[in-house]
């Protein structure tokens, strides 16, 4: 039995060592991570999500949205996340410190959503437009029509009813899951400053064919964006 014992100790030990180093090691490093108090704004960031947004995170996971969408912005210069306007700084561990179900995602068949809420506000995308986007689908995104229900209008038409051609006396309204999901999407923001993640200094113009000599000039003239 001796050789078997050494064999199993070897296999067990090899896996245990990696677990202790990577999983336990990083957990020990990360578990002390709390919120950051910003004395200028007199608030702690990141803020905890509202109840409805936290519910929306569960809906997001239940629908497997992470199969197509990530929620992590890589640093400027590594990938093109920030050039695509997905965030002004890279995502760091503290951004997710309060989340019990972080959705970092595995694939980018659709855009990154780490700052979707912030982008939506800038682009004028409100709840009504988001409901419509979810109901109809868009680009390669399937329609999530099952998040909405057709209901008879009793009294007044719902303010959240979608502008769809339906029979008179009827309306299409978002279910509570659709409402939670949209609240969650609009709450996705990493727009606060953290000491460990200053906003990237993105040159205002990147030449299409960067030559080594020319590339320093635009960078020098571009003012650094301060958080």
């Amino acid at each position: 039995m001796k050789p078997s014992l050494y064999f199993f100790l070897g296999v067990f030990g090899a896996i245990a060592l990696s677990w202790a180093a990577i999983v336990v090691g990083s957990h020990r490093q990360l578990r002390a991570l709390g919120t950051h108090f910003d004395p200028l704004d007199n608030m702690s960031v990141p803020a905890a999500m509202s109840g409805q947004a936290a519910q929306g995170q569960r809906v997001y996971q239940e629908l497997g949205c992470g199969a197509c969408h990530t929620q992590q912005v890589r640093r400027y210069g590594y990938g093109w996340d920030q050039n695509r306007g997905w965030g002004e700084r890279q995502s760091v561990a503290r951004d997710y410190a309060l989340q019990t179900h972080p959705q970092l995602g595995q694939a980018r068949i659709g855009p990154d959503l780490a700052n979707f809420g912030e982008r939506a506000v800038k682009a004028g995308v409100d709840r009504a437009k988001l409901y419509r986007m979810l109901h109809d689908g868009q680009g390669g995104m399937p329609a999530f029509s099952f998040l909405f229900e057709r209901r008879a209008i009793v009294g007044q038409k719902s303010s959240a009813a979608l502008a769809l051609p339906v029979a008179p006396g009827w309306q299409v309204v978002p279910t509570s899951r659709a409402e939670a999901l949209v609240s969650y999407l609009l709450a996705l923001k990493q727009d606060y400053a953290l000491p460990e993640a200053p906003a990237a200094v993105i040159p205002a113009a990147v030449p299409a064919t960067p030559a080594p000599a020319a590339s320093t000039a635009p960078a020098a003239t571009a003012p650094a964006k301060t958080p």
Partner: protein
Amino acid sequence: MNAPATPSSASSNDEPVAVETQARWALLLLLALGIKWFVAGGFLALIHSIQLHTPEFLARYEWFTFGRVQAAAESALVFGWVANVGFAIAWWLLGRLGGERPRGAVGALIGVAFWNAGVTVGVIGILAGDLGPYALLQMPAYVFPLLGAAYAAFGVAGLAAWLDRRRADTYAAQWYASAAIFALPWFYSAAYAMLSLYPVTGVSQAIVGAWAGEGLRLVWIAPLALAAAYYLVPKLNGQKLAAYNYADVGFWALIVLAPWVGTRALVGGPVPVWVPTVGVSCTLLLTLHYLIVASNFKAVFRRGSPSQALRFVLVGIAAYLASGLTDTALAFRSVAQYTQFTYLGEARLTLLVLGVFTPIAFGALYFLLPRLTGRAWASDGLIRTHFRATWIGLLILIAGLVGAGLTQGTALVAIRAADGQIAAQTFAEIFAATRPWLLTATLGLGLELLGGVLLLVNGILQLVPASDAAHSDTLASAPAS
């Protein structure tokens, strides 16, 4: 681990050995349920593949929404097909090489029934919305106790076959088989404990998910395939493996290094930088393992093979070496910034499950099933057609996914133009550009699945008494040594 050069001396003739007679029903149940899951998981994978280029397909049914179908297909193939058939092959070869009567066959039979009930509940649970966000760990947490208890009942039988062995010398096939049987509960229960039982918060979850998911890929699925390959290749062509005395280095290189590589997937992500760095470095070191596997098997490729079973195994070995090469190439940060988050991630898992494990398991099935049923395969033509469907389908499937991944990776590059506007392809444009590739991948997957159906048909025909007259070249071509 002083090992003789070839396991073919382990059984002196082709008479059924103890494990084939005394564990027959448990092995047959494992194989039958495994093939059932291959067909079921394959159809789910086909739905997923169609939805990639035709998003509206089945989209109005919540149970078949994109993310759920992907998770269900992956779980059915991995915990239904790979777990059942992989364990059957591992248990069988441990029994054959160990030369002792199997223990715990009745317990195994019960365990297998409960395991498959658990996987069924898990896959239905995923379709109903209880899915986790990490690859290979997507089944709902509530099936874990059932799966764990069931696995204990039949996993023990596999480990007993290793511990009870009568021969002092051991073979590479035995090391890989017993390590795989041992690794599944290790990674899965550690992930369950840290993601569900006492969940860690924040990005620590993603680290656990990456570590355990990749651990299952490389320390469970890959060794199951390698165990079958190291057993079947010398057995079927009757020749020693080249450079076999390095096989133990190859084995330990995989076991020691592979558990460290998972976090490479988090490169550039919101985790401490050392976490992915460890993963990237260990991926590069793991090349040693693939080099040794390549040197063990390279002579077999030159000779070619008259045995259909061996041809299947060779396709799997070639795919394994290709997967090692791509893993290494994609590990570099400079490459990963383009390829991360693309279809290449899906291509990697597909290559391992459908490209490496599946052909090797098919080869093992063609060799093993006649020994369990006592009947020859009904049709050689079906086996040959299955072989063609498997390798051509695999080639088309992987080419489609890699093409889609590279198209997507280059299209995600965005450039901020001089006027401050972002000049980048929209996701609708990227979708249109990858669509032809994704259609190709569906075609390949369809062929692959057709092959599985042919095996099923051939297996059912085998049970028809009239087929006794037919003779299989697979059975005949196995050397008598």
